[in-house]
C-alpha cells in the first residue's frame, strides 16, 4: 500500500517539479554559454547576461521555495482539506499516508539540492576550462588538482575521509525528513482547532521552537554541571570525538523524527476531524 501511495504522490507532484527542474537546467546552460564568451564579446552583451543571471538566481531560489511549499500544500490540501475525504477512506493506515507524503517530499528536496549542485557545476564549467582555452590542458590541470587534494586529505584523515561525508549526508537526509515531519506535526495540531487551523499550526510551530530551545539550554546546563564535557575531551582523540558528535546528532534527529511522527499519527488516527 505504501508503494502505491508513493507512486500516486509522485504522479501528483512530478508535473510541477520536472518542468521547474528543466527550466533551472536550461537557465544554467544559457548562463554558462554567456560565461564562455570571450571578454570583448561578453562586454557587448553584459545587459542581457545580467538579466539572465538574475533570473537564474531567482529560479534557484524558486525551486527551493517550490519544494518547501509543495511539502506543506500536499499535506494540508490532500489530507486535511477536501481531498482528505478520498485519501482517508482509502484502505490505508494514517501512518502510511503520512510516510508516503514524507518520503516523496524528502526525495524531491534531495533531488532539488542535487540538481542545484549540477546546475552550479554547469555554470562553473566554462570558467574551469577558460584559463588557457585549451580544454585538454585545463581538464588535465583540474584533474591533477583534484588528485592532489584527495591524496593529501587521505594522508591526513584516512578512512574518515569517506565516513564523515557519509555521516553528514545521513544527517542531512534525516534533517530533511525531520523538517517535513515537524511541519506535519504542527499542521496536525492546528487541525484540532475548529477554526483558524493554519494560524494554530503556526502557533504550534512557535511553541515547538521555544520548547526545543529550553531543552537544549537545560541539556547544556546539565553537561556543564556534571563535567561530562571535560571527560569527553580528555579521553578521546579528535576523530573519535567528531564521529560521536555526528552520530549523536544523527540519533537526536531520528528521535525528533519519531516524536513528530507519533504526534502526527496519533492526531490523524485518533482525533481526525475533517470539516
Amino acid at each position, binding site marked *: 500500500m505504501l508503494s502505491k501511495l508513493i507512486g500516486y504522490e509522485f504522479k501528483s507532484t512530478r508535473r510541477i517539479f520536472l518542468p521547474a527542474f528543466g527550466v533551472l537546467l536550461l537557465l544554467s546552460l544559457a548562463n554558462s554559454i554567456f560565461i564562455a564568451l570571450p571578454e570583448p564579446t561578453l562586454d557587448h552583451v553584459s545587459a542581457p547576461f545580467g538579466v539572465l543571471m538574475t533570473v537564474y538566481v531567482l529560479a534557484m531560489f524558486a525551486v527551493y521555495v517550490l519544494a518547501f511549499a509543495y511539502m506543506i500544500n500536499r499535506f494540508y490540501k490532500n489530507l486535511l482539506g*477536501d481531498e*482528505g*475525504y478520498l485519501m482517508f477512506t*482509502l484502505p490505508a493506515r494514517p501512518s502510511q499516508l503520512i510516510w508516503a507524503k514524507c518520503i516523496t517530499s524528502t526525495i524531491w528536496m534531495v533531488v532539488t539540492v542535487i540538481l542545484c549542485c549540477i546546475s552550479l557545476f554547469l555554470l562553473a564549467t566554462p570558467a574551469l576550462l577558460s584559463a588557457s582555452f585549451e580544454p585538454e590542458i585545463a581538464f588535465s590541470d583540474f584533474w591533477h588538482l583534484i588528485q592532489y587534494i584527495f591524496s593529501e586529505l587521505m594522508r591526513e584523515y584516512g578512512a574518515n575521509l569517506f565516513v564523515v561525508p557519509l555521516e553528514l549526508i545521513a544527517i542531512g537526509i534525516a534533517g530533511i525528513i525531520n523538517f517535513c515531519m515537524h511541519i506535519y506535526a504542527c499542521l496536525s495540531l492546528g487541525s484540532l482547532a475548529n477554526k483558524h487551523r493554519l494560524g494554530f499550526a503556526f502557533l504550534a510551530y512557535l511553541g515547538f521552537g521555544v520548547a526545543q530551545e529550553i531543552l537544549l539550554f537545560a541539556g547544556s546546563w546539565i553537561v556543564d554541571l556534571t563535567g561530562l564535557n571535560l571527560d569527553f575531551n580528555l579521553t578521546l582523540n579528535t576523530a573519535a570525538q567528531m564521529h560521536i558528535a555526528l552520530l549523536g546528532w544523527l540519533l537526536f534527529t531520528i528521535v525528533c523524527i519519531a516524536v513528530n511522527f507519533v504526534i502526527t499519527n496519533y492526531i490523524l488516527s485518533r482525533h481526525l476531524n475533517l470539516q
Partner: protein
Amino acid sequence: MANEPILQCTGLCKSYGRKTALDHVTFALERGRIVGLLGPNGSGKSTLIKLANGLLTPTAGEIRIAGNLPGAETHAKVSYLPERTYLSDWMTADDLLKFFATFYEDFNLDKAAQMLTHLGIQPKDSLKTMSKGTKEKIQLVVVMSREADLYLLDEPIGGVDPAARDYILNTILTNYNENSTVVISTHLISDIEKVLDDVIFLNRGQITLHKSVDDIRSEYGKSVDALFREVFAC
C-alpha cells in the same frame, strides 16, 4: 460474520465545541437493504456518515462496520460518496479510474469505463474543465463501480437537476450488490422514496424513527414524504 449488522451505532455522540451534532444514537442496519437517512439540514446526517468513514472521531459511544471500528479494514468494504467534490483537478477521468483500480480491489474498471462512455465523458477529459454536476456524476460512477458491502451516499441528488436525479437513482439501483446495504442521506424524500426499504428519521442529532417503508405506510397510512413533512413541519 454474515448475520452481523453491517453498520451498528451504540450510544454514538458527536459534538463540535458546544454544539451537539449527534446525541446518543443507537441503531443497527442489516445487509441487503436500501436505507434512507432522512432529516432536515443540520440534523446530523453527514456527521453520522463521516463517523462511519473514520473522517470524524466520536465524542462518546462507538460505530462499527461489520463488527470493526472504522479503519483501513472497513474502508476496503465501504464505498463512500461525500457531499462535496474530493477530486484532484490535475487528474483526467482515466487517471481517476486508474486511481480507484489501484487502491480498491473491488473496483470494476470495465463497468466504470462503460458508465463514463454512457455519460459522454472521454477518458482524457480533464476534471478541471468539468462542471460541478459532471464531477458529481463521475464521483457517483466510481463509487458505484465498487462491489462494496456498504455504500454510504451523502446527498447524492442534492445538487443536481431532476433529470440527473433519475440517472443517479438508476445508477445506484442497477449497480449495487443484493447482499450489500445502501444508505442514502437526503432531505429530498419524494425523489428516492420509491427505492427505499427502510428509513431513519434524524432530528437534532437524535433518531426519532427507524422503520421499514412498508410498516410506515401500513401504520401511518401515508407516504414517507407526507410523514416527513408532518414530523419536521416548521
